């Protein structure tokens, strides 16, 4: 176990090096200058001021020097300050990443709660009306972009019914869990829709394959109920690719909820990342990227460890 974790940590470090280097070089390739954002678009450019700002930020150093400097600071825990807002990057992340992480987590859980029964039903009733109905529904869910779902949810629950706020974000720490959930449930639902469709398709197809197995026939011949066979015999062996996709999609949601965050005016990490990119605020981009990449690696390590829990044949020793 210790060895496994050591290997994983080494891999995490390598991944982070690659990811930060690539982000750094991409942002360096971008046209545009953070100084423009700092001074404002309409400001009168005094070449001396511009030169001073560039020198202060170290923008005149060669690309590699800048990267190594950043890396050295990051290694000691200093991710730097935003060029534009002067806020510590670590503060930005600690405020915003939990918001996005909560949304992603809720979306995945809500998606699973729906997707597993739908997928199992579709596989069990393969080709029957229950299967074709749910498959059609899943197809629709898959093809509607999540911001459309978000707009619909706002219209229904905020405008028509007035049950939930249309936008904004209440923090658990200051407003309590209930208030927090009131603002989280709609954006999370909008994100969950697509995930639900993907998950239920996976469960259905893996389950169909599992139901062909001899051990399922053997379980039937023991007189077990279909429900018991589906849930206690077939579901676990059918969930390996689902777990893989959960890991990948969770990571993707961390960096990719920007549209929903914008729609619901949620102070998440995606929202901030887009801002930083627009302002060429490289230091913020770097910091957020590091955290998203770390989250990716950690989540997928957890998924890898869970494989062994689900399928004992993967366990070693």
């Amino acid at each position, binding site marked *: 176990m210790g060895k496994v974790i050591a290997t994983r940590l080494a891999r995490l470090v390598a991944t982070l090096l690659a990811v930060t280097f690539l982000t750094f070089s991409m942002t360096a390739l971008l046209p545009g200058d953070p100084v423009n954002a700092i001074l404002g678009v309409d400001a009168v450019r005094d070449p001396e001021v511009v030169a001073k700002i560039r020198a202060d930020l170290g923008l005149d150093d060669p690309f590699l020097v800048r990267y190594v400097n950043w890396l050295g600071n990051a290694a000691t825990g200093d991710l730097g300050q935003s060029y534009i807002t002067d806020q510590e990057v670590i503060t930005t992340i600690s405020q915003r990443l939990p918001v996005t992480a909560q949304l992603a987590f809720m979306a995945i859980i809500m998606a699973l709660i729906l997707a597993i029964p739908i997928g199992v039903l579709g596989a069990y009733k393969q*080709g029957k009306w229950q299967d074709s109905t749910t498959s059609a529904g899943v197809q629709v869910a898959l093809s509607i972009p999540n911001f459309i779902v978000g707009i619909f949810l706002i219209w229904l629950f905020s405008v028509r019914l007035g049950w939930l706020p249309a936008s904004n974000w209440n923090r658990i720490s200051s407003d309590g869990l209930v208030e927090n959930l009131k603002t989280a449930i709609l954006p999370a639902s909008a994100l969950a829709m697509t995930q639900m469709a993907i998950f239920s398709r996976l469960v259905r197809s893996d389950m169909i394959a599992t139901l062909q*197995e*001899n*051990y399922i*026939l*053997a*379980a*039937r*011949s*023991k*007189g*077990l*109920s*279909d429900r*018991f066979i589906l849930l*206690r*015999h077939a579901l*676990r*062996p059918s969930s390996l690719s689902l777990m893989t996709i959960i890991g990948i999609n969770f990571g993707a949601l961390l960096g990719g909820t920007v549209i929903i965050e914008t729609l619901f005016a949620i102070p998440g990490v995606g929202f901030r990342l887009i801002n930083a990119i627009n302002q060429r605020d490289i230091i913020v981009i770097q910091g957020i990227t590091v955290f998203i990449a770390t989250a990716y690696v950690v989540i997928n390590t957890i998924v890898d460890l869970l494989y062994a829990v*689900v*399928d*004992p*044949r993967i366990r070693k020793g």
Partner: protein
Amino acid sequence: MTHHQYRAQGLAGNERRKLHCSHHRKPDNGGTRVEVWQIKGGVVSSSAASDSHALLSVRDLRTHFDVGGDAVKAVDGVSFDVHEGKALGIVGESGCGKTVLSRSIMGITTASNASTSGSVKYSGTELVGKGKRELRKFWGEEMAMVFQDPMTSLNPVVRIGRQLTEHLRAHKDLSKSEANDLAVQLLTWVRIPEPKERLSNFPHQMSGGMRQRVCIAIALACSPNLLFADEPTTALDVTVQHQILNLLAQQQQERQMGMVLVTHDLGVVATRTDDIAVMYAGKIVEKASTSALFSGMRHPYTQSLFWSIPKTSEPKHTRLSAIVGRPPNLAALPSGCSFADRCPYVQPICREVEPQLQTIDSHSFACHLPVGSSDAEAALSANISAGLPQSEGAATRREAHQGTFT
């Protein structure tokens, strides 16, 4: 272990089994079971009416698969009886419908393109046409099945302990510790060492032979009255095959279960079953008590199967005798006798008229020119002189087996 100890263990086992499982056996059934098999023992009924005393009575059972509009007749009009405490061997090559037959009897075929007709009576209750819900009451408790491949018939992600007892717990109100005790008991019956430790194992931690023992233990868990064993040793190596077959035979005897042992090996059933039915192309072509069958096979197919068993009495490097050709396509059976193309005795009538099962002294066979008849002798000589390939093979085999049976 001596024979004596082994019996003693078995008896002790039966006692304990009653403690755990007596409550799910119908009292009238349990009370009369010994009497029934003594009266009916050894009789294979071939009458058209089903035998009301039989544990299992199969009449004109047909299972056809609709494959692209063609009917694949995997089981095509099969009838037989199995009495309490008796074992029936069903023998035939791969693809002759043995597996489909045993699954159709239980009703566990899942294919949506399968249709089953005819009659299967279990202790007088008709099973064909019953819904899944009703059939499920019979599965596991009344009749159980040991499958061909123990590598795939145990769930790889479920511990042995749960697989052994989950059906018991589903049917009965057993506590977890009672179920555990019973699981240990079951593993002891099938002679798995360190049964307690094995309960927490997963199937992949066991060898093929061990797994098949576990499968047998699972099948025995609810003390079924009827056990199907579908080629239980085909996937195992030869030494283990022997142990598993003996274990099955021993359990069947001790528990006085009815058993249907499906195999492609005539040698397997020779010493372990009371009756034998030989299947070819979805039909039973010969059926008799084991002793009657081996003392005088009437169907050329049975004879060919018998000839293809290697004999230790033969000199080393003797070529194995194989049956010429392969079983016919079950979707497009030839007219007349299905075995005609491979039969050493074949005559024009065989390709025109389908032989019906006829019974002489409880020995049934479906052949126009039954082995041992003067017609068959004449047909074989004529075929040999005409140079028909399958008959030439038969001539040498006959030579080689001269004296092994009359």
